[in-house]
């Protein structure tokens, strides 16, 4: 008897356990790749790397070999070490952009969803910001402020905030129509309690999904910005910078582009897979039928 009850609640979306989430195939695969990337970023100095900035004439443009795993670049830096250290930049940018833009976007979205005059003004500004393609907005800002990792994070965040606030705003507006929220408002639930008990828990799922997509987009945008010379400063070992450096000689030394490129694509793929999986698990409307 107990067993049947447990099994029926286990399949319900609200009875979702962490184990169900981790068992989802795309989350499992994406999560494993991400774990490797995170480990590489954290443990970079102990993974057989050398100083990513150190130059060595012997390594100059050397192809990959058992000695120099990923080869050397045109000024003699070790591509393997730079690729491993590059994970730090990409993951930091992705995580920071996702966290900051969700925090700011959530605040703006909640305000817009509950305060009418904020809605009118702020959402116009958000629409305007969304009309500027994200790379261009970032390029404009970085041109203004100068290249640094912090500025790159700031610039990408600015183009993601409107998307988050829109999502939160529309979630709040539709939640306000739902009977249980209407009832809570009618009986005079204090606003903080309303927010904490009814609104936030229901925005969490879509934000989690959106957050992983923002993570992926931020990693891509950082790399693209660095590639066109408007991203992290050239001496920073980021994947975008490495590809940018390598592009002039890529016909004779393709490994300069291939290794950071594969690492970049793999990371973005992993995060997108986690996002897809989460969407699958968390939102019954999107479930494969």
């Amino acid at each position, binding site marked *: 008897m107990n067993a049947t009850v447990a099994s029926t609640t286990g399949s319900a979306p609200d009875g979702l356990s962490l184990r169900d989430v981790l068992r989802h195939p795309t989350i499992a695969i994406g999560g494993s790749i991400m774990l490797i990337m995170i480990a590489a970023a954290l443990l970079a100095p102990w993974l057989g790397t050398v100083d990513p900035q150190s130059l060595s004439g012997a390594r100059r443009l050397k192809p990959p070999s058992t000695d120099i795993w990923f080869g050397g670049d045109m000024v003699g830096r070790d591509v393997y070490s730079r690729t491993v250290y590059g994970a730090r930049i990409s993951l930091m940018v992705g995580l920071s952009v996702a966290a900051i833009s969700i925090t700011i976007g959530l605040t703006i979205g909640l305000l817009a969803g509950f305060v009418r005059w904020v809605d009118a003004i702020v959402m116009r500004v958000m629409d305007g910001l969304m009309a500027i393609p994200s790379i261009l907005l970032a390029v404009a800002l970085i041109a203004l402020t100068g290249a640094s990792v912090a500025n790159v994070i700031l610039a990408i965040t600015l183009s993601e905030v409107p998307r988050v606030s829109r999502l939160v705003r529309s979630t709040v507006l539709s939640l306000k129509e739902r009977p249980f929220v209407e009832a809570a408002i009618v009986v005079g639930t204090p606003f903080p309690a309303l927010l904490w008990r009814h609104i936030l828990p229901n925005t969490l799922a879509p934000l989690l999904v959106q957050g992983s997509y923002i993570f992926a987009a931020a990693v891509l945008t950082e790399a693209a910005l660095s590639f066109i010379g408007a991203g992290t400063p050239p001496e920073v070992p980021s994947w975008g910078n490495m590809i940018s450096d390598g592009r002039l000689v890529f016909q004779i030394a393709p490994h300069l582009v291939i290794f950071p490129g594969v690492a970049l*694509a793999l990371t973005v793929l992993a995060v997108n897979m986690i996002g897809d999986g989460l969407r699958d698990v968390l939102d019954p409307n999107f479930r494969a039928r």
Partner: protein
Amino acid sequence: MYALRRVLAIIPVIVVVALVVFSLLYFSPGDPALVLAGESATPAEIERIRGALGLDRPYLVRLTEWSFGVLKGDFGQSMFFGRSVAELMLQRAMPTLWLSLLAMVFALALALPLGIIAAWQAGRAPDRVAMGFAVLGYSMPVFVLGYLLIFCFSVWLGWLPVQGYKPPSDGLWPFLSHLILPALTLGVVYAALIARITRSAMLEVLQQDYMRTARAKGLGLWSMLLGHALKNAAIPIMTIVGIGFGSVISGVVVTETVFNIPGIGRLTVDAILRRDYPVIQGVVLVLSGVYVLINLLVDLSYGLFDPRVKY
């Protein structure tokens, strides 16, 4: 009414874009007067040039002047090329236009069949393969994909030129052969986006009662999918075509660098490297305008697909 409302709705958007873009120039660290005056100029000379250019006047005055200038097509002077920004952009417009057009054709030609087949075969192997490609497609950095394609088709197989651009006046094949790889590079990301939406929109339509009616009439698979379902799925698809065009614009900047195409994107990168703020400003403004305009056209096209949309 709908059309008018939609057209009016883009005005605040344009205003915000213009404000952001103007502020960029206003607050930019470089002093155009300094650049124009040259290295040996005295402070008095620089001050004179500042006055002549109107750089010493307040924010709002300059904003108004600048806005009127933009409305007349005057985007200011490039600090590096010594030409007007408008002239520069016009000169670089054609390669970018061709590139994005061909990319769009590739994207639709790839995405629609993929999305439709995935929806029809939902949950089965073709669906999984198609959606796997889609995730791969939009996880792939444009420039990495670009170099991969160059490596395969130009360096290894030698079928296509490595880089560069030839205008259509040089003949159809030289023109196309230079454009195929960049357009494919740019189209893949866009295609991945469209294919996903096509699948989910079609999936929803395929479950509607009227699709059962269509089957009960004895229609074949393709007339059901294309004749009956696609038109009903068109609005979400068109919407993502519009929104996704933002990724094409962003992609143009990168793709033109990879393939060395002298278009607007390449101009942007050159301007960034030289801190040529007026050019950056003009490009951001014009491309954002194009983006807004395309999305307006998409919104206005809804009536073509859904007779219930009233203008």
